[in-house]
């Protein structure tokens, strides 16, 4: 497969990858630091390139409900936003999960709470991996750490969304959204014209009608449905966990991180090794499903773990749950849009784990 090499911003890579993945519809609302996605799409006239529909909605609420409508027709549809806008989408996401519809949602996270800052953060982890909206449901969450992965995870995200009929979120941040890197882009995929049997495409004569709904007034049936969702999430945990490891084989101390923080940690590992400290890194690519098993295994070989994330400490709770107290787990993070340095990471590792 011949891939085209381009120099792009992370946000642009998502947009271009969406057109090339055969996406049928994008619905979004401007917000920094992700507006380039909608801007790039409008500039590219995907309607002429592939027939893809792109619409600037009146709000994030409208955009996610447009995604619901398009997904209900069996179409490959997506939306993108940043933290405050993603909060507005939560009811819609809950409906999409409850109606078992596939879609892709991109969150280019900025610091909060409230209007917060337009600078990058990783403070929407809980919202992304624990459900976010009301009711028992999960999103499958992918965390890219490069512009290349921003592009690659669009296609992967759609694939997983349709495999599980579940919303998939790309959880990124303003660093990766705004930075430019080289990226290899896949060739154009054709948009699918297939009529999926669960989708509303007009009831063909002589066959059953299709209903897209998340409503079930019979509690017994609702519980059966809840169990079905749980089974789906367990299957994701068995089959879809993705991580990348750096120098974990002989590591005494483990950094656990994702997205742009993981890139900083990678540099921190090199610096620590140069000092003679045996530090390794596990970079989480899927945040849900969470790599519980692998962390549990690593807890058997390391002396301690430090979760590094640009938040007050969110992912660290899942790390603690995974290792069940076998080794000490601490957190290091900067907030408010401050990006940690590799030196700070090592310093904190020394004071919080190695020295303590």
């Amino acid at each position, binding site marked *: 497969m011949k891939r085209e090499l381009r120099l792009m911003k992370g946000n642009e890579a998502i947009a271009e990858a969406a057109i090339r993945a055969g996406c049928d519809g994008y619905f979004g609302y401007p917000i920094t630091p992700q507006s380039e996605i909608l801007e790039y799409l409008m500039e590219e006239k995907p309607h002429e390139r592939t027939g893809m529909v792109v619409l600037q909605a009146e709000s994030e609420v409208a955009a996610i409900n447009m995604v*619901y409508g*398009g997904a209900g027709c069996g*179409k490959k549809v997506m939306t993108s936003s940043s933290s405050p806008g993603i909060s507005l989408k939560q009811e819609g996401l809950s409906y999409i999960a409850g109606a078992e519809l596939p879609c892709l949602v991109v969150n280019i996270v900025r610091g909060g709470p409230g209007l917060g800052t337009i600078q990058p953060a990783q403070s929407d982890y809980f919202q992304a991996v624990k459900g976010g909206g009301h009711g028992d449901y999960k999103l499958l969450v992918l965390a890219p750490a490069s512009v290349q992965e921003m592009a690659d995870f669009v296609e992967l995200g759609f694939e997983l969304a349709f495999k599980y009929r579940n919303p998939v979120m790309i959880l990124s941040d303003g660093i990766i959204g705004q930075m430019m890197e080289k990226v290899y882009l896949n060739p154009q995929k054709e948009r699918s014209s297939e009529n999926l049997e669960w989708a*509303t495409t*007009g009831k063909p004569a002589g066959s059953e009608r299709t209903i897209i709904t998340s409503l079930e007034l019979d509690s017994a049936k609702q519980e059966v449905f809840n169990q079905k969702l749980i089974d789906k999430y367990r299957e994701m945990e068995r089959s879809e966990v993705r991580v990348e490891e750096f120098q974990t084989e002989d590591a005494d101390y483990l950094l656990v991180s994702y997205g742009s923080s993981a890139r900083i940690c990678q540099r921190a590992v090199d610096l620590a090794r140069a000092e003679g400290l045996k530090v390794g890194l596990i970079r989480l690519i899927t945040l849900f499903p969470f790599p519980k098993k692998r962390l549990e295994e690593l807890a058997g070989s390391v002396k301690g773990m430090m979760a590094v994330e640009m938040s007050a400490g969110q992912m660290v709770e899942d790390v603690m749950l995974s290792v069940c107290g076998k080794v000490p787990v601490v957190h290091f993070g900067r907030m408010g849009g401050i990006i940690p340095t590799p030196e700070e990471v090592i310093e904190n590792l020394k004071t919080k784990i190695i020295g303590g």
Partner: protein
Amino acid sequence: MSESFDKKSMIDEANLAYKKSEVMTENVLSYCPGCGHGTAHRLIAEVIEEGDLQDKTIGVCPVGCSVLMYNSLDIDMQQAAHGRAPAVATAVKRLMPEKFVFTYQGDGDLAAIGTAETLHACNRGENFLIVFINNAIYGMTGGQMAPTTLPGMRSSTSPHGRDTILMGNPLKMTELVAKLPGTYFVTRQSVHTPAAVRKTKKALRKAVEYQQQSKGTCFIEIVSNCPSGWKMTALQSNEWMEENMFPFYPLGDIKVPEE
């Protein structure tokens, strides 16, 4: 349906004024006796059947008493979040432009929580039909004040009558959307008498025709009753509607295409 209810023995074919549309399912309607929702459903089903549109229709019903509309109509349907049907329908129509798409929304849905989605869909001129059931109350949740509740009208959240200084004025969404460039056909009808039913059906037929020509948004308000929410019998509610609702929400076409 209960076994003891034998339609054949109860309904003599010779006396039938009309037949149940093939586009209605056998499911029992979930509405209170005398409620206008059921009649409105029937008319939509008939128009779909007459237009041979069953395989081309995608309906969107949001939250409200009509949330279970998909149990009554034998067509593909999507159930939308409260207020969001016009956003859902926007994507359905844009991604399936050859289909006939409609939303069916209550007044709480369309004129309160979903005001933005409704106005913007109409303003963009999305090519679908909005059927707006205005019963001046929140039926499903037990009779609370709606954006369309009349001044002085009682509801469970305006138990002393709607005080417009405290609670604001009723919103005439239909007049509002008629002003927008995206709407093509805007009318206000009712379904409480045989004559009114015929007029509403005619309006629905026109809307279906205009939709097929992709002329913009069609908007049909049906001023309707809510005997349970209004705490009246079905007959009383229809009289009350004529005396109180129609003067405030006058029936008739508001925006018609230039011939």
